[in-house]
């Protein structure tokens, strides 16, 4: 198989225009969509209306009391202690957040409804609310501790949304993010004022370390969307190469060498998988490097991404094998040209590469979920939002099942050893 594999990969590397489609195009689209839709995401307020449930698990009064008791126990001068205690009672981070969300700038677009946690979860399920903001237990205490004493990890907020990738959720999330940032930033400033040696960088770092859940940015959305779309082109590239081999009678030579023809097919699949992996690595890395799409600091995050990528690459390998088999059997390049000329765009659309499919008919979403690109996309997203292995099981199983199906049909259609087309 080595001979075949070396040949298949060399052929691809020598083909400039093909490389352009596989690498430069998606990168260009990431840049264009990432930039232009970022503007739309935060600019278009009309479209932002959403029903938000507000859940408080935090007891503010108790937190203030705890902090005040702590101040008493610190043994600082009476006057200072009184001032701190008053500040603790007056700050009320909860009130700050509510008034921010209901402020004039947002024009009442985000009506908050106070709810119990269970009720909010149910609302989210039934889609009567679009998002849930949860003030976790200990929120006020953590905020106050951070602001007044400069200790602890800062505040944390939780946001759940039916569709975290929607522009509305995106905006809400960035508002929350900014809020948490401000609270933590003020803490840093007050620490600086308190005479501690905090460098500028660390202040900035304090702003950066937002503990609110990361939203999906337009760059993240389109890096993933374009990557899972453009890996599909590898399938048609490989299959049209097979067509050329057949037309130019190189395939005849290969048949006459009497090597098991399955080696030829296996090499096509493996070459496709390897190319897809390289493609994914380059797209994710370049996008992170240039647009700061994904932060590089978490090994576990990249590990998950790698696993999803390997599964996706294997699936595209099986797809390439299927298209190669059909191309040889039909003795025409109809399959790869129809695939690259329309099917990929359709699959990408259904899979959500261009826009979230949240509002579309259920049937489209189901089909999209079963495309390898759509399934990979939801795997990447759920990993990005919550790196839990359990979240990957569903989409990865779907990819596995479709890949197996591709492979079985490919093997059934492919000419057997000694068979003559």
């Amino acid at each position, binding site marked *: 198989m080595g001979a075949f594999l070396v040949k298949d990969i060399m*052929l691809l590397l020598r083909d400039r225009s093909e490389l352009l489609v596989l690498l430069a195009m998606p990168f260009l689209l990431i840049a264009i969509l990432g930039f232009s839709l970022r503007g739309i995401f935060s600019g278009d307020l009309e479209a932002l209306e959403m029903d938000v449930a507000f859940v408080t698990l935090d007891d503010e009064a108790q937190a203030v009391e705890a902090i005040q008791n702590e101040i008493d126990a610190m043994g600082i001068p009476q006057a200072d202690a009184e001032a701190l205690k008053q500040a603790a009672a007056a700050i009320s981070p909860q009130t700050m957040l509510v008034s921010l969300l209901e402020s004039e700038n947002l024009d009442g677009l985000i009506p908050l409804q106070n709810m119990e946690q269970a009720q909010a979860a149910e609302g989210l399920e039934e889609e009567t609310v679009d998002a849930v903001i949860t003030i976790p237990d200990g929120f006020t205490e953590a905020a106050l501790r951070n602001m007044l004493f400069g200790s602890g990890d800062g505040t944390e907020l939780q946001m759940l949304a039916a569709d975290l990738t929607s522009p509305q959720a995106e905006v809400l999330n960035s508002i929350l993010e900014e809020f948490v940032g401000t609270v933590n930033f003020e803490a840093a400033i007050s620490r600086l004022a308190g005479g501690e040696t905090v460098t500028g960088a660390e202040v900035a770092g304090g702003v950066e370390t937002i503990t609110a859940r990361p939203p999906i940015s337009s760059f993240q959305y389109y890096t993933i969307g374009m990557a899972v779309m453009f890996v599909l082109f590898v399938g048609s590239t490989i299959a049209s190469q097979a067509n050329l081999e057949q037309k130019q009678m190189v395939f005849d*030579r290969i048949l*006459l060498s*009497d*090597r098991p023809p399955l080696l030829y097919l296996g090499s096509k699949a493996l070459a496709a998988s390897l190319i897809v992996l390289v493609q994914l690595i380059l797209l994710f890395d370049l996008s992170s490097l240039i647009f700061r799409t994904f932060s590089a600091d978490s090994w576990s995050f990249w590990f998950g991404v790698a696993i999803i990528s390997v599964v996706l690459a294997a699936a595209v390998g099986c797809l390439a094998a299927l298209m190669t088999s059909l191309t040889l059997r039909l003795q025409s390049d109809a399959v790869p040209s129809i695939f690259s000329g329309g099917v990929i765009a359709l699959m990408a659309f259904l899979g959500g590469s261009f826009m979230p499919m949240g509002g579309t008919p259920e049937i489209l979403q189901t089909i999209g979920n079963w495309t390898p690109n759509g399934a990979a996309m939801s795997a990447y997203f759920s990993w990005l939002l919550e790196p839990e292995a359990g979240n990957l099981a569903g989409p990865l199983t779907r990819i596995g099942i479709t890949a197996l199906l591709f492979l079985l049909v490919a093997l059934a259609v492919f000419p057997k050893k000694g068979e*003559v087309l």
Partner: protein
Amino acid sequence: MLDTDKLTKKFKDTVAVDNVTISLRQGESVGLLGPNGAGKSTAIAMISTLMKPTSGDVRLHGKSVLKNNGAMRAILVVVPQKIALYEELSAYENLKFFGRIYGLTGKKLEGQIQYVLELVGLSDRQKELVKNYSGGMQRRVNLAAAMMHEPEVLIMDEPTVGIDPQSRNHLLETIRKLNREQGMTVLYTSHYMEEVEKLCDRVYIMDHGKVIASGTKEELKGILSEEETVWIEFDKSYPKLFEKLGQIEGIQHAVTDEHSLKLIIPKGARVLGTLFHEAERYGAQIINVNVQTPTLEDVFLRLTGRKLRD
């Protein structure tokens, strides 16, 4: 060693190969001559186990290869009609790939690559991409790739199409060497009768899917022993006159080239007088008259009434 028995291939509405029975003896060089569309490539595809016949059989040492084609594939190699190479790879890289799929590795592989490059005279340009070669060089690499597998039987399908005279001579010389010096059995397909005449011991002439004549060159030309070929050159073309001359009684076949006319007439037929007379009537000037020894081209003309090439 290699025989076909009433080999037939039907496509939807054409019978591409029609009851073709041919045989190759060990070490022989056999030509398959016929115009475009005669069915040569289709016959070769069936002989080389790449296509299933509609009916008939292909036998190697008396054993049918239709069910079990491994034995045939092990000893035979085909140089296809197309440039069956990877254009984006160099000659060296192509040969390496074809050598490896025939199981060659390491020193043996390297040695064979250099040997076949030497054979086709391309050692010094082996690193260039095939797409940058001239048509003639591509044809030479096309042969070289086949020779990576040391075959007993070499089947070539019109290997000199689109080639410069120098490369053509080199190629023909190479094939002759392989046949004469290494005892390789050669089946050579062409619509150029000069090539087949030069290279082959025996010839099958095909037209419209059928073998219409076969034998040694001498035997085939014997078909014309009762005839003569007369070749007349005029100062320019006289279409009306040429048509008229073709209809003179006693003339069996006539074909025209720009300024000249070729006639096949029975030996001793007295047509020249009439011919000169007609020419005079049309005011045509005869520059040259030549009574020729027949060629295979003439044999084809005699058998089909057409030229091998148009």
